[in-house]
């Protein structure tokens, strides 16, 4: 999957980028395939992702702003949900099998109501990040090795990532950058690996 974008550089000197609540869940796959959710991994992964992202913003001379849930209202909630829905349509259209002839160019927008987000959080752009990850417990690694030895060719499930991020211009609602990927390695539980994973996700990010 390749990133899509409508801008290469920010139109402002030091833009404020609002980080929307990161939707993330990290779990541990037990040997039988049960996905045991890990609060501590999720917590540290979230922190690592945010740190890595902030570092990227620093290289682009942009400032990270955290989302203030207390300034939320019904309209903003609808905006966030609309973004999720648009994200699905972008994936269908840009990365899927059925392309819309009315959307040959990458031009998606949430509409002018994003100004609410701009006002309430004093930011120029908003970034949305989704992250889903599963890690194998040590038992499962052994299981996988044994299976691979006994039955070569069977691909064990485990250790896979799905991620997706988008940048929205809060003056007009346009999605100015979008990227997603799916791969089978990339550990965000420790900071070094998180940096690599986040850098991969934020390829071609403006700035």
């Amino acid at each position, binding site marked *: 999957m390749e990133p899509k974008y409508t801008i290469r550089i920010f139109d402002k000197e030091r833009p404020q980028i609002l980080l929307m609540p990161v*939707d993330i*869940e990290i779990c541990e796959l037990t040997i039988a395939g049960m996905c045991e959710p890990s609060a501590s991994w999720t917590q540290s992964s979230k922190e690592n992702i945010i740190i890595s992202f902030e570092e990227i913003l620093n290289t682009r001379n942009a400032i990270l702003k955290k989302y203030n849930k207390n300034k939320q209202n019904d*309209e903003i*909630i*609808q*905006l966030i*949900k*609309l973004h*999720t*829905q*648009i*994200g*699905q*349509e972008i*994936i*269908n*259209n840009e*990365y*899927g*099998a*059925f*392309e*819309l*002839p*009315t*959307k040959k160019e990458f031009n*998606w*927008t*949430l*509409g002018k*109501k994003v100004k609410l987000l701009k006002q309430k959080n004093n930011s120029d752009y908003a970034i949305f990040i*989704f992250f*889903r990850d599963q890690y194998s417990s040590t038992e499962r690694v052994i299981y996988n090795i044994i299976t691979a030895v006994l039955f070569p060719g069977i691909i064990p499930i485990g250790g896979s990532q*799905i991620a*997706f991020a988008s940048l929205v211009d809060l003056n007009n*609602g346009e999605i100015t950058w979008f990227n997603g990927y*799916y791969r089978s390695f990339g550990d965000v539980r420790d900071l070094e690996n998180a940096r690599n994973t986040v850098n991969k996700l934020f390829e071609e990010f403006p700035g």
Partner: protein
Amino acid sequence: MSVIKKIFIISFFLILISCQADKTYILVEPGKVEINKIYSVNTNMKWSQFQEREYNFLFWTVDGYTLQRIVFFKPLEDGQSLFDYDRLFTKENEKRPTFNSKMNKFEIKEFFESCIIWSREFTSFETTDIKNHKIGETEGVSFDIKAQNELGLNYKGFAVVGIKNNKLYSIYFIATEMEFYDRYKKEAKEIISSVKIL
């Protein structure tokens, strides 16, 4: 499973099935358009049209099915339902709402509502403000739509249904309340007002 996960799984599945040449979108240019020899409509803008061979309907969209769409259903005969595909559980298929050509104006609105609810696309779906409406020369009704999907995203729209020669004709427009409904409602109203049954 979580809605996000569902979205991804559906999307990646779509990515995987590639060579389906008979199931793509085609571009509809502005002007007078004939739809499957059933309807004729006028439009002032371009649309992407999608027709799934097994389904009873065809839809127009600009940004995507779940953001805004105008749906044209094939005429239904007695015993048929708006959505004829089979659900996973056979008991559910038996409970499909069926059309009866003796239905009155209120019942065809009720039938339309029941079919959409049966399809489980929305977690809540209401119809209000029923009025007399002519689809071309055919007597029928129009009504407003208010809905919400599992994600909690609000939708608005309107529909027209009517019976001609014992067959039910249905067309509806729906879009997300945030942004897309306001953007497309004028054009959708004009399109639906221009519909003639061939």
